[in-house]
């Protein structure tokens, strides 16, 4: 069974600092990769996704992620965070042809201070 690891459980940054959140997955075959964001009290929203092609993926709100197949990684980045980026971030993976069932990491809580 596949698994997803997010090693940063809680990250605190000042506004304008750069962000990188780690995500590693265990499955060796073809995967689809996702980053979801959950703002306080809200549902999950898709930040970005990777299915194939250019391994550098740009998403909403200035976020991007890079798929490095050799490292089984899909790290999320943002050059300059804002207070409004305070949220929980989930990395997720699924395999093509498996009813799009997602396996989630445990999440990273990002707190941005003014």
């Amino acid at each position, binding site marked *: 069974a596949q698994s997803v690891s997010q090693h940063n459980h809680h990250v605190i940054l000042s506004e304008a600092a750069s962000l990188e959140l780690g995500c590693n997955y265990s499955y060796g075959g073809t995967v689809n990769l996702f980053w979801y964001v959950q703002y306080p009290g809200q549902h*999950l929203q898709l930040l970005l996704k990777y299915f194939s092609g250019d391994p550098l993926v740009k998403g909403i709100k200035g976020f991007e992620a890079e798929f490095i197949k050799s490292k089984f990684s899909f790290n999320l980045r943002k050059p300059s965070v804002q207070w409004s980026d305070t949220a929980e971030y989930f990395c997720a993976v699924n395999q093509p042809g498996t009813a799009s*069932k997602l396996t989630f990491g445990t999440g990273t809580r990002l707190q941005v201070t003014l």
Partner: protein
Amino acid sequence: NAGVTQTPKFRILKIGQSMTLQCTQDMNHNYMYWYRQDPGMGLKLIYYSVGAGITDKGEVPNGYNVSRSTTEDFPLRLELAAPSQTSVYFCASGRDGEAFFGQGTRLTVV
């Protein structure tokens, strides 16, 4: 466009009670899912469906049941509520590998 709608948003149950969490989607997606979210644990798949009349267990199905009589609806049933089922429940529908989530139901079992 409503997307995925869940009701209720909040509920408190007593141990042993039963209830149904409702989920409706208006995007005509074949795939639908129920996840539960517990602090520090991420989201775990309870049940999923690939179309009307077809359901299957996910990672944590014990204590739950589902049905899928129409494309739009995918209710989740708790028959005998237990404190371990205190959680936030998310319904989602899917297309082309991507999932769209509802607002969630916060359930407390006391």
